[in-house]
């Protein structure tokens, strides 16, 4: 257990790759197709290494790399650091690299994608912070290690926060109905459009790490019962994919409305009640 978190943080691209590969298989099967092999993300990875990279300008490419390393670092800080809030703030920073990179090129799709990415941030981060606060209220600690050794089941105290979090996962992972910043049919991938070869690889892999990040948060909701955590993650995974496959893309007004007027109050209510119960009564 001692080195578990560190190992996960270091191996996160590989773990994330498997999750992503598995997801593609599940998605294909849900669409009644056979789907790619499980190792497909790694094949893509190798392929991208062998492609010539066309750089728009070096700053833009650097932002792509920065996004990857920042995301990786974010996960490490989140898992091994003393305070998950640090991880969440770093997460914003990592996305900021992507956004700046997106703004730095002339392509209108990239710029529009970056604008939409900011909207994503505004929807996602408040809820992530509420998740952190909720977990703190339940377990009394900001660190992942302590939360994971909490003997109770945080999800029992935080049902609404959990629901809010699950419903915002599509926005974090850019899945339907909230795949607005990537919107393949509208802006062809958004901020990532101008990356190619090796630099696109960085963006592509950073996405895998986000998977680990999301499912690590799901894990936190079950405290020390990691078997339950595994089951819960699988359930959430299936739910997210089925949702992805049974909805069409919302537009960004609808996403903001949903995140701020439905999910945020929901989560806030949960935390408010919990705080009252913990500290007042």
């Amino acid at each position, binding site marked *: 257990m001692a080195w578990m978190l560190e190992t996960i943080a270091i191996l996160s691209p590989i773990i994330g790759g498997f999750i992503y590969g598995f997801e*593609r298989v599940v998605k*294909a099967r849900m*669409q*009644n*197709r*056979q*789907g*790619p*092999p499980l190792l*497909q993300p*790694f*094949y*893509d990875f*190798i*392929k991208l290494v*062998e*492609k*010539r*990279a*066309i750089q728009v300008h070096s700053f833009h490419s650097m932002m792509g790399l920065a996004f990857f390393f920042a995301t990786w670092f974010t996960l490490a800080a989140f898992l091994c650091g003393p305070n998950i809030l640090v991880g969440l703030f770093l997460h914003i920073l990592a996305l900021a690299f992507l956004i700046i990179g997106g703004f730095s090129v*002339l392509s*209108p799709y990239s710029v529009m994608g970056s604008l939409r990415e900011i909207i994503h941030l505004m929807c996602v981060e408040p809820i992530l912070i509420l998740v952190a606060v909720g977990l703190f209220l339940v377990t009394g600690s900001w660190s992942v290690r302590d939360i994971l050794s909490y003997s109770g089941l945080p999800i029992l105290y935080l049902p609404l926060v959990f629901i809010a979090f699950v419903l915002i996962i599509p926005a974090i992972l850019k899945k339907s109905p909230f795949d607005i910043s990537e919107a*393949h049919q509208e802006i*062809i*991938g958004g901020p990532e*459009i*101008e*990356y*190619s*070869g090796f630099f*696109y690889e960085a963006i592509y892999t950073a996405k895998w790490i986000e998977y680990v990040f999301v499912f690590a948060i799901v894990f936190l909701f079950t405290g020390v019962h990691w078997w339950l955590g595994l089951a819960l993650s699988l359930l959430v995974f299936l739910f997210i994919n089925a949702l992805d496959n049974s909805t069409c893309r919302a537009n960004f007004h609808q996403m903001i409305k949903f995140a701020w007027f439905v999910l945020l109050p929901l989560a806030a209510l949960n935390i408010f009640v919990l705080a009252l119960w913990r500290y007042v009564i």
Partner: protein
Amino acid sequence: MSAKIKSPWILHYNCGSCNGCDVEILACLGPKYDLERFGIINKGNPKQADIFVVTGPVTKRTRARLLRLYMQIPEPKVVVAVGTCACTGGPFRNMYNVENGVDRFIPVDVYIPGCTARPEAILKGIKKAIEIWKIKTKESIEVPVVIQKEFEETLSKMVLHGQTVDRRKIIHDLVNKYIKNNLEVTKCD
């Protein structure tokens, strides 16, 4: 490397076809044929694509765009011409606004005949294209057919003068010149 051939991403461009073959390409992505099981994704973005799938005879207005898309795809890349009209011009051969097959402009690696090409034929053709793609590397330099003559002339001139030769740059400049000469009526950004 064997892993490479399992992940070809395609870019599809229609340069004046009747849609017949485009529809069949889309049908290939559907559940019945499911190209994704071979790792193939339809990327709408030339910068991340490997296989350039072209349909249709080249019309006068699409030729500059075709060249630009071709140049934007990073090496190694292969070009697949789908349908009779992309191979030779087919039913539209020698019409006044048509420049016939795609290989008048860019080097085509695989020709898929048929009007319309059957999805099975497209699958077979793409598999063939992957075999060709496997051998190419990121150092391979391909010269678009339209500028080949000029390219060779420029090259021999430069060699004669003892200048250092950057083939890629020469190609780039020549293509840009060509595109400028055949600029589309409406400019983008």
